[in-house]
Each structure stands twice: as C-alpha cells, then as structure tokens.
C-alpha cells in the first residue's frame, strides 16, 4: 500500500519534470533562432538596406528596398481583395446564418481551407492569370495571397462578431433601424477592434509567405511599380539570397529576415494586446 502510493507520487513528479523539460526544449529553438537572427541581422542592417536596390553580385552594399516596396504593393492588393470578402463572409456567418446548415458548411470549409499548402494557391493563381497573360505579374501574386487571406479573416470576424451581445442588436432593431444598418453601425462597430486584429493576423501571416509568390510575382531586381510586371517581395528575395552561394547575399538575407520577423512580432504583440481588451463585457 505504502509502496504503491510512493510509486504514484514518483510517477507524478517524473511526469511533471518531463512536461517542464519538453517546454524548455520547445522554447530553446525559438530563443536560439531569435538570438541568432538578431545577431546576424543587426550587424548587416543599415540605412542602405532600406533605401537601395540590390547591387550586382560581387559588389558590396545594396539593399532590399525594392523588395519591401514590392511586398507592400502585393499585400495592399491582396488586402483590398481579401479583406472585404472575408469580413462579409464573417458577417454572414455571425449575423444571418446562425444555426443554419449552410453556415456550418461554410465554417468547416473555411477551417479546412486554412490548412491548404500555400503553394497550391500559387499554382491556382498561376493557372488563372499568369498562363493567360503569358507573363508574371504583381496582380497574380496579390490574387494568390488574397485567396489565402479570405478564410482566415472570415473565421476571426465571425469569432469577434459572436462576442457582441445580443442586447445591443435588439436595442437597435427595436428603435427601427433596418437590419443592414444594425449590422454595419452596431455589430461591426462594436466588434471593430477585434476585426482589425483578425485582419492584422491574416496580414502578418501572408506577409511571410513565399511559396505562392515563387511563380506568380516571380521577383525583380529593380524598382517596379506596375501591377502587370514581375515584382520583388521580401520573403521571396530572402529565399533566393539564402540558397545562393554569395556571402554578401547571405548577409542581406539575414537582414531581411530580421525585418520580416520584427514586423511579425509587432503584429502578434498588437494582436495579443487587442485581444485582451477587445471583447465586450456582459456578453449575452
């Protein structure tokens, strides 16, 4: 009896130790990646990185300014296509479709779509746009990223709209406000911090995607502002430089990934802060 209980307590302590060990083992790669990134990236990050386009191979200096601008253009394009559709779908799920089979099917499909590899979206955008136009373009890159953003934004918008108390909606409807006006001015406005948070999350996620851009936006060594031409993108440039044999390009790749990670860290932190205070008290 005593031996058995001693054994049980021993197992308890052992498992606790294992759980702590596994947490430490998980945190270690993250800290290692961060520290190494900051160490390698900070030494090569300078003003020229943000203002110059890549120098020819073998020449020192150069930067990734065109890649950052290109990423910005592609992301703006993707957001303008993906965010409205995503928010509208989320509004349907939360306001018009509650309890319906169609809404459940849409929710399920959105969840499944979130797990599809991004390269498949790239192939789809390639087949739709690049093959027709016979050239790479920023537009096709934007379309590929927009397709990726829609399910994410749909789910987070729905989640945020579900936290809006029914009492607010009913009060507006009781005052004679039409349903569409209620949704726009009351539900969306109340949930807007959370919805913006969800959009930021989706934005940060697609900002780091490389695979769909490999054969849609394709990359560009120079400044490019046209939507119908190949355009550089930061993650794409990092990939190309990382697998190249030149040390100068490796340096630029480290600096670029530091910029990318900092941007994503800022988004994730903001998301965390907003999520902590975004939900309404006294939900229905």
């Amino acid at each position, binding site marked *: 009896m005593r031996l058995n209980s001693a054994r049980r307590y021993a197992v308890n302590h052992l498992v606790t130790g294992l759980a702590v060990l596994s947490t430490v083992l998980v945190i270690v790669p993250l800290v290692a990646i961060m520290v190494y990134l900051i160490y*390698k990236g900070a030494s090569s990050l300078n003003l020229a990185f943000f203002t110059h386009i890549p120098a020819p191979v073998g020449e020192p200096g150069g930067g990734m300014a065109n890649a950052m601008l290109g990423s910005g253009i592609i992301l703006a394009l993707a957001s303008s296509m993906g965010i409205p559709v995503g928010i509208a779908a989320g509004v349907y799920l939360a306001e018009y479709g509650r309890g319906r089979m169609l809404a459940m099917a849409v929710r399920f499909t959105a969840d499944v779509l979130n797990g599809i590899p991004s390269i498949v979206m790239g192939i789809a955008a390639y087949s739709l746009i690049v093959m027709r136009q016979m050239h790479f373009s920023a537009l096709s890159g934007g379309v590929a990223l927009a397709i990726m953003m829609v399910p994410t934004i749909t789910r987070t918008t729905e989640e945020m709209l579900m936290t809006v108390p029914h009492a607010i909606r009913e009060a507006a409807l009781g005052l004679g406000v039409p349903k569409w006006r209620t949704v726009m001015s009351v539900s969306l406005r109340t949930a807007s911090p959370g919805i913006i948070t969800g959009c930021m999350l989706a934005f940060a996620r697609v900002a780091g995607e490389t695979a769909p851009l490999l054969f849609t936006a394709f990359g560009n060594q120079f400044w490019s502002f046209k939507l119908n031409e190949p355009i550089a993108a930061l993650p794409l440039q990092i990939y190309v430089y990382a697998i190249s044999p030149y040390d100068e390009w490796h340096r630029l790749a480290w600096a670029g*990934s530091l910029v990318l990670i900092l941007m994503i860290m800022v988004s994730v932190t903001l998301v965390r802060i907003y999520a902590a205070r975004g939900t309404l008290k006294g939900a229905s």
Partner: protein
Amino acid sequence: MSLELEPESSSPPTAPSTQMDAPQLRAPAIVSFVGAAEPAAVEGPPSPIRQYLSKRGNGGLADKTFAAVMLVCALSIFAIVLFILTILILRSRLSLAQFGFGFFVHSSWDPVSGDFGALPFIFGTLATSFLALAMAVPLALGVAIFLSELCPARLRAPISFLTELLAAIPSVVYGLWAVFVLVPIMRDQLGPLLLKYLGWTGFFGGYNFGVGMLTASIILAIMILPIISSITRDIMLAVPTSQREAVLALGATRWEMIRTGVLRNARIGIVGAVILGLGRALGETMAVTMVIGNHPDISKSLFAPGYTLASVIANEFTEATGDLYLSALIEIGLALFIVTIVVNAIARALVWAVTRGAPARVI
C-alpha cells in the same frame, strides 16, 4: 421608481423634454400646430414625423440586397475550393491522360526523357512528415499539459506568447536558420553522434552532407510543434472542470488527474490536433526545400537527400520546359491539394467533435 399620473389634463403624462408628441395623443396641440380646423380627430394631415417616416420606407430592398451580398461572399469560400480543384484538374489533363494512376507508383522522375513518376516525392513527403510527427507530438503534448495544468499563472502568458510567436515565424526564416545553423550541426556534431550510437539500425548509412531527410524532419518538427500544442491546449481547456474535480476527489495525484480526467476525455480532439499538424507538415514548402537535398530518390538512410511533393513544385515549376512537364507538376499539386483537404477535413471534424464547433484557432 413609480410613475406619477397627473390628473389635471385629459392628455396622458409626457416627458418634459419632448416638444412634439405622438399625433393621436395630443390632437388639440396638433390642430393648433398645423392650423387645420379639425376638432380632436386622429385623421387629418399627418405630422411631419409621420410624413418623413412614410416617405422613407422600411428599408426592405436595402436589407435584401445587403443579405444577398453577404451570402455571395460567404459562398465565395466554396467557390475558392471548387475553383482551385477545377483549375488544377484542367491544367493537369495532359499528364493525367498520359500516365493515369501509374503516375503515383512510378518511381523515376526524368524530365529529359519525359518519364514522370511521383513515387519518390510521395515517399519523401510521408517519411519527413511522419518522422516530424514522431518528434513533435510528445513535446507538444508535454507543452500543452504544462501550460494548461502545471504552469504557474504568471508564466502562462509569456510562455504561450512565445509559442504563438514560434508559430508566426515565416517558413523561409526557419529555412534560413536551418541552412546556416542546423545543417552544420547535423553535419559536424549530430550526424557522427547518431552514426556512432545508432548506426547499427541501418538508418544512418551513406555519406552525411548535413542536408537530408533527417534535417528536414527536424525543422518540420519545430514548425508543427506550436500548432499541435496550441490546439491541444484549447481542447484540454474545453474539458469541463467537474471531470478534473471528480478525479481529484477520488484521491488521484496530479498526473493521474490529467491522465484520467482530462486526456481521456480529450483523446479524440488530441488525435485531431495531431492530424492537423500532419496536414501542415505535408504541405510545408520553403523550409523543407532548403534542407532536404532535392534529389528524387527513395533510400533507407535518414542522411540521404530526398524530395517532397511541395519541394519539387517550388524548385522546378519556373523551369518546366514543355507542356507535359508543367502538367506533371500541376498533377503533383493536385495530389497535394486533395491529400491535404482530406487530412484537414478529418482533423477538423475530430477537433470539432470535442470543442463543439467553437471557433478554433486559426494557426
């Protein structure tokens, strides 16, 4: 608060701040306001409010239009899936017609002679994914158990934030780190160690370049860890506290409470979380492309270079000469799409079964 009715006039009490009253309650005032000579009647020229309200309509058309637009956008999710499926099937027609189902069991990939077979890629994908799962699942479960049951409250937020950050790092940054840090470690330290102690198993033969299936599995394990652990944590939190308390009341130690009260109830969901991690590992492109060696070969050794479905698309798509080559690559994309849809659907169904359709984590 009680309502005081003042009986000095025939009209019902009104709020002191309003200037205009409902027409039928204050007929004499309406008469004096509008100027008509009707005595105390409900008919007569309507008040300005009533005129305004009846002119506006009830917004029926706007409501219907708005609802229709929202419905169309929601249906766009289905449209996206159908569109991707159709366009992939359309563009891989050539390869489907040429090779049929033998494409997936044929093991030579020779673009020069037009001989395409996807077996090496299927092997590479499955081997790296399952190896990554084997490495990641115990660690992820440990983290989830620690964060949900054992962690002091002060540490919970920072550690879960760190795990979320781990999930948000882009794949290409993982690949960059793997190429410059993991590959040298693999080549110089870890590889010889494994060969010395585990070489008898026969899985560590061949020359160790640093890049290969094992390195790819390790980086994949690091990448799918946060997903599995965060969804497992959500599932463990969905188990009602009454279950935990019941087991504790019977005199269980903490681990026994976790094992019988929480994990047993959450089994289905945890399986779902693991399958979700598998789905992510199957489709991971960039980090794997950078460290797997990119050689379409099936080999027993874990040090040998391999090739995955996603890597071959990433590497050879822009260099594909000829329609058959491109079509074969798109067929590989189709295979990847169908496999990940099926895996993700099963996983999501399992997770939903436990969390009852609550909005699951997006990552």
